[in-house]
């Protein structure tokens, strides 16, 4: 299945394709956690994940066409 991913702010540096927006092919029933493994944002980096505008956690299941928005409550403010 195909997922739309956006890495917001400085997290864009972890993009596998040098763009903050990209599509990623995942196995059916993949989870947010599995997506995280593919993108390789270090575990210690604070981040929040929205799937179609809803807060998600590593066990949230993804579906074909989902929009995943990953951002960091960045340092500073």
């Amino acid at each position, binding site marked *: 299945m195909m997922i739309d991913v956006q890495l917001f702010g400085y997290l864009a540096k972890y993009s596998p394709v040098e763009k903050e927006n990209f599509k990623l092919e995942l196995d059916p029933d993949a989870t947010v956690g599995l997506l995280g493994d593919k993108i390789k944002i270090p575990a210690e*980096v604070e981040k929040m994940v929205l799937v179609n505008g*809803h807060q998600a956690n590593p066990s949230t299941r993804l579906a074909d066409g989902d929009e995943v928005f990953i951002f960091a409550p960045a*340092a500073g403010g």
Partner: protein
Amino acid sequence: MYGWRGKILRVDLTKGELKEENLDGKVAKDYIGGRGLGIYYLNKEVDPRIDPLSPENMLIMATGPLTGTSAPTAARYMVMTKGPLTGALTCSNSGGQFPKELKRAGFDALIITGRASTPVYLWIDKGRAELKPADHLWGKMVPETTDLLLSETDPKARVACIGPAGEKLVLFAAIMNDRYRAAGRSGVGAVMGSKNLKAVVVRGEGLVPVADQARFKEIQNRVMTKFTQAAKAAPSLLSQHGTIGVMTPLTQKYGVLPTKNFQQGTFNGWQAITGQTLTEKYLQKTVACWACPISCGRFTKVEEPGFEGEGEGPEYETAFALGALCMVDNLAAITKANYLCNDLGLDTMTMGATIACAMELFDRGFLTAERSGGPLPWGDGRKLVELVRMTGLREGFGNELAEGSYRLAERYGHPELAMVSKRLELPGYDPRGLQAQGLNYATSPIGGSHCRAHMAYCEMVGIPKPVDPHEWKGKARLVKLWQDVFSIIDSAGLCIFFTVRNLLRPELEVLPDGILEYLNAVTGAEYSLDELVKAGERIWNAERLFLHKAGFSRQDDTLPHRLTHEPLPDGPAKGKVVHLEEMLDEYYVERGWSREGIPTANKLKELGLN
């Protein structure tokens, strides 16, 4: 005294008298400073039922004990008065350089009453204050006023002034300092205009005295080292692209970007009003307030024909209000409208929300083109700019816009189309998708504001940890905690942006450990954590007492009917309304208030307010 200068300047404009008085040490400790000091004096000396534009109203400009020190973001001051837009309390906050200069000039606060017979300005030069004629400045825009005042006083002085909007008593006129920074909300500029006071000009010297310099340095090194390391690893989006860079994508993704006068929660043109777009097209340089390591201010320049100009902005709240709320996706037009608001001295948020309200009244046929001086189509950037100018000068239909959205909508028979709480226009977060933010708007002492607590921190950004934005149960407790801690931040003289992330304990209780350290090193007052937390709650309750005496109660802790009864039609929060009444029941219990929202005798006694 340390931190505090220990001096208040009283200005009686009717008599033309200036008087210094000492700041009471116990009052300073109990109310911290800034916002706390403001409400202390308002409660003590002002009848809350007065007409806000009468000479009896008191205009207070108050710094906090940290303002002007080198503690990070210690740049803020608070303007407190009874607001003409709302009839409620007003506390309007601003940063820049003026607040630290006021403090360096020797005063913790200015308490201004009466009305001058002709226009004047207040000039404070290193502790010496005098009133000077301002007839030659009346009618002038903010930048020209500022330039003239600097040339006739001291080029190194700092200016806070009103523009034509304040003089003409536009009910949402701002007090502008350092040209581009605004104490924006609820019409503090109109109160200043009603007093015939055009400006306050200050020049100080030296540093704000610190009680324990070694301790202060140790805290400063520790806090700044941690901040710098974190910012290096994860550069702050606020620094890179400003508030508009952080918030627009987030509100759009959550489906809480108020669009078309809160008829939608997402905006098709949202990418045009992001900080990333602003950076690419118009950013000249970033701007920092005094002692700020973040530098979220944007100095911009627009060259598109019809929208030419330069200045600071837009911030997120400006871009949402003049942009999405009016369906305008032309960033040049939004930025130009922002420049005009700055020059005229207008609150950009109420300006945008009032135009959006007019556009909906027109769209639904309640307002005719004949009355509004031409059609008001959604999304018309040129019309937007024209309406801002007309409002600031009270020209034509602008004279009706100058009264704010509530009075406008009421005039045309549909007050329910004003997106306000206590008649103050709501900020850029649709509370149908952020329940705590909704409760926060409804219970804010100034009306619809995100600055007396900002629940988007926990509901959207996950600070200190994520909470479900659509759940209403249990939110009352969170709102109370954040409101009380924001009272402390506002009173200490700090900015929320640095403080929330760096000076609060990273747990749900958002305890102000970091502020406590700074306050104790700077003032030597040796607050305990419990005393400081209590002071925050005391300030919130003191403000509620003022409101209560002005006639406000639960029936005024409201949100527009649209937000509590019309489900959001689009986006991730589709189908949601705000569960306000349920949350209010919980909130008053958390606060120790009656079911009608009035502080109980026990609560007042506990806080020393009886």
